[in-house]
């Protein structure tokens, strides 16, 4: 499967010369450059938001051989940004749907599909034989595996990533003197600190912008023209419409590309990445304990972080209401000399509130386990439950 056919004749046919005529006339490309594109083997890992424009433009531009790695199927939530696919592709294999679309677009193209998830075991074999790898994946595990495999194989990695309204694009290529992904980001965020597009959202045109920039870098690398995006991290802010070039350099101590890099180190992230304590621990107390404290005349300051409509339904007597969203802005109105007990419906928002107040420097903050609901169930049955 990975023995890539190198039997496509690089010489352009009359039809190909007409098809690519508008870019063939460019001095920087010309027939020589077009033949390089025709001979090129490019592996695109991920055929989603970024992969869609990368594949569409590389196929149109006359790349001779495209490999597509994607294990996923097309979901309706993909369609606002994954422009390779339409309603007819729902529930179908992304790799195979993409291959069919691309071959309809350009019959000169050869496509290899790999319907698997790239990992430490298969990465080196997957990328072998390709001239350029495009990282269009959507998770850190894949990004570190791709980086490590590309560094070891000496293949340039044309990388982009997106979130909400922000994009980053770079060509990682230590073989040409530039840094690798790990030189810039030595480790991924701990779980909980990195929202995915599914949680955080992404504006649909953003991968279109970042992916076409990746396709442009691929063409430049193959034709050996211009200044590749090596040693630079390009960031794009879609809300401000602002591009920035950041200067990035090799890290001599990099575990992937540094002088002392272990050639036998397993690719990608270690199985057990150290779990980082991202969430400030907070105390929780039960409704029984709160009832006892009230009976003894030593209640904490009761802070209800639900919205007004919820407080209207049921609330613990004597509690003050500040909705969670407004907590940081109104924190100055809270006492610093008294323990604060945060309360919500069932105990989730109150945990967040207690954590936020602790981070703001309040001491003795706790969260009521089970919230008003537990209070109504076990202490005060006269309260409505919802």
């Amino acid at each position, binding site marked *: 499967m990975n023995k890539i056919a190198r039997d496509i004749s690089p010489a352009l046919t009359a039809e190909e010369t007409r098809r690519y005529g508008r870019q063939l006339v460019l001095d920087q490309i010309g027939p020589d450059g077009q033949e390089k594109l025709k001979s090129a083997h490019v592996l695109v890992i*991920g055929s*989603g*938001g*970024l*992969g869609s424009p990368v594949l569409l433009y590389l196929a149109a531009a006359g790349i001779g051989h495209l490999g597509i790695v994607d294990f996923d199927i097309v979901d309706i939530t993909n369609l606002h940004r994954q422009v390779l696919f339409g309603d007819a592709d729902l529930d179908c294999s992304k790799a195979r749907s993409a291959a069919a679309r691309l071959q309809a677009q350009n019959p000169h193209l050869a496509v290899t599909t790999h319907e698997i998830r790239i990992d430490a075991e298969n990465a080196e074999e997957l990328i072998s034989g390709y001239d350029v790898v495009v*990282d*269009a*994946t*959507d*998770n*850190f595990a894949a*990004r570190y595996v791709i980086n490590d495999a590309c560094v070891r194989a000496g293949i340039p990695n044309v990388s*982009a*990533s*997106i*979130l*909400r*309204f*922000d994009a*980053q694009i770079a060509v990682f290529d230590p073989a040409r003197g530039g840094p690798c992904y790990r030189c*810039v*980001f*030595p*480790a*991924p*965020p*701990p779980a909980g*600190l*990195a*929202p*995915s*597009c599914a949680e*955080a959202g*992404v504006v649909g045109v953003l*991968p279109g912008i970042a992916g076409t920039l990746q396709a442009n870098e691929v063409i430049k690398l193959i034709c050996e023209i211009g200044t590749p995006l090596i040693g630079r*991290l390009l*960031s794009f*802010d879609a809300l401000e419409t602002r591009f*920035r*070039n*950041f*200067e*990035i*350099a090799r*890290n001599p*101590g990099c575990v992937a590309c540094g002088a002392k890099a272990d050639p036998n180190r397993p690719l990608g992230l270690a199985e057990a990445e150290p779990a*980082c*304590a*991202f*969430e*400030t621990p907070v105390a929780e107390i039960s409704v029984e304990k709160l009832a006892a404290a009230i009976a003894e005349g030593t209640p904490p300051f009761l802070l209800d972080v639900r919205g007004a409509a919820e407080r209207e339904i049921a609330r613990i007597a004597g509690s003050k209401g500040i909705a969670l969203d407004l907590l*940081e802005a109104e924190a100055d109105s809270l006492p610093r000399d008294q323990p604060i007990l945060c309360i919500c419906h069932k105990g989730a928002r109150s945990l967040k509130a207690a954590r*936020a107040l602790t*981070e*703001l*420097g309040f001491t003795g903050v706790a969260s009521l386990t089970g919230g008003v609901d537990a209070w109504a169930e076990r202490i005060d049955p006269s309260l409505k439950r919802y």
Partner: protein
Amino acid sequence: MSIVIELPTTLRPFASGEAQVALNDHASFNEALDSLIARHPRLKSRLVTGSGTVYDFVSVFVNDRRVGPDEFPEITLGDGDVVTLVPAMAGG
């Protein structure tokens, strides 16, 4: 003298929505980082590890040039310097 720390979109909610934080009289990067966290304590757990160093997934740039963690103690900041924090993102 004054320096500016630029925050990424993902960290702004923990800094009262500010995209840029201007700080006065900071000679070193570590002092500037301490002041940033003192002003916005909720940034702390999202920006620095338990041992007080910037997380590896946040790249630090001074005037658009990356500086590695080894260099942090030696970085001196002058009037008008811009420190930009760029976190790794994985979306695709």
